[in-house]
């Protein structure tokens, strides 16, 4: 799937889609529009996962990120009234330092790419049954982290309720 001209075209369309909506998330004056853009951007990332033959992750991305996290964010924006008001200034005065920091980070990763062995694109082997192997590894080799993360979810749920309730 990650070969052929079709996949390349899909990749570029998805990349433009992701970065365009990502820019909207970062720059939009209206915070509500930024949250909607975030949903579209994450949808594009799910497409990239499909392109990389990680179908299960694409499903998790849509269900958890778009279905839960974005919805939660939109709820929080609506509850804190006035925050999405376009008249309120949404960006601070640190544009230039922030651009320098972000540019340095991207440049550092780019340099690592250029200097690394990764530039020689390795031959793409065919993956075996993706979801089957993923589930087997998750529930055999990584069963302890899996259990720990369920406890983390429980703690977070209780913590979020305690934090957000009225005293």
């Amino acid at each position, binding site marked *: 799937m990650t070969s*052929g001209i079709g996949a390349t075209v899909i990749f570029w369309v998805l990349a433009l889609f992701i970065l365009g909506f990502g820019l909207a998330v970062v720059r939009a004056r209206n*915070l509500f529009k930024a949250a909607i853009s975030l949903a579209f951007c994450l949808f594009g990332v799910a497409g990239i996962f499909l392109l990389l033959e*990680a179908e299960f992750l694409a499903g998790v991305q849509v269900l*958890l990120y778009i279905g839960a996290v974005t919805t939660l964010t939109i709820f929080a924006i609506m509850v804190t009234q006035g925050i999405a008001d376009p008249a*309120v200034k949404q960006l*601070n005065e640190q544009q230039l330092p922030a651009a320098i920091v*972000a540019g340095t980070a991207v440049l550092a990763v780019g340099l690592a790419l250029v200097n690394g062995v990764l530039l020689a694109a390795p031959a793409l082997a065919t*993956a075996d049954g993706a979801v089957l192997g993923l589930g087997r590894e998750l529930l055999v080799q990584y069963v302890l982290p899996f259990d720990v993360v369920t406890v983390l979810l429980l703690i977070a749920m209780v913590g979020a309720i305690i934090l*957000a309730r009225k005293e």
Partner: protein
Amino acid sequence: MNTLLLSLNHFLVLGALLFGLGIFGALTRRSAIGILMSVELMFNGVNITLVALQRYLWPNDHTGQIFVIFAITVAAVESAVGLALVIAAYRRFRTAMADEVSLLHDGALAMALAPFRKMGNPEGLAGHPGSAPGAGH
């Protein structure tokens, strides 16, 4: 079948750009919710990198994808707790702007930051001492 037009680097560069965009947003957004959304962008940049590396270098080993599953779970946890914190702060300060929420109004930190605030914005941000109702105990 193996005439590769898409290389690993395409995905790595895309992930790096998304990560950089997230850093920029986290540093320039004023509202705490906007910062949280930018952090989500950074998570996704890293996730793309992990999945791409797994797919190209270890196609029969799913550890990269398992890392992404854990990253998504922890991101959901971060989002829930972070938004609860934002709502609690909003109730206390009547604002969710990260640069206005401060308990050190007359303290050393506020005085130390005052000249920088004037430099950046002549009228001052809305976060001047006493401007946030409900913050005065």
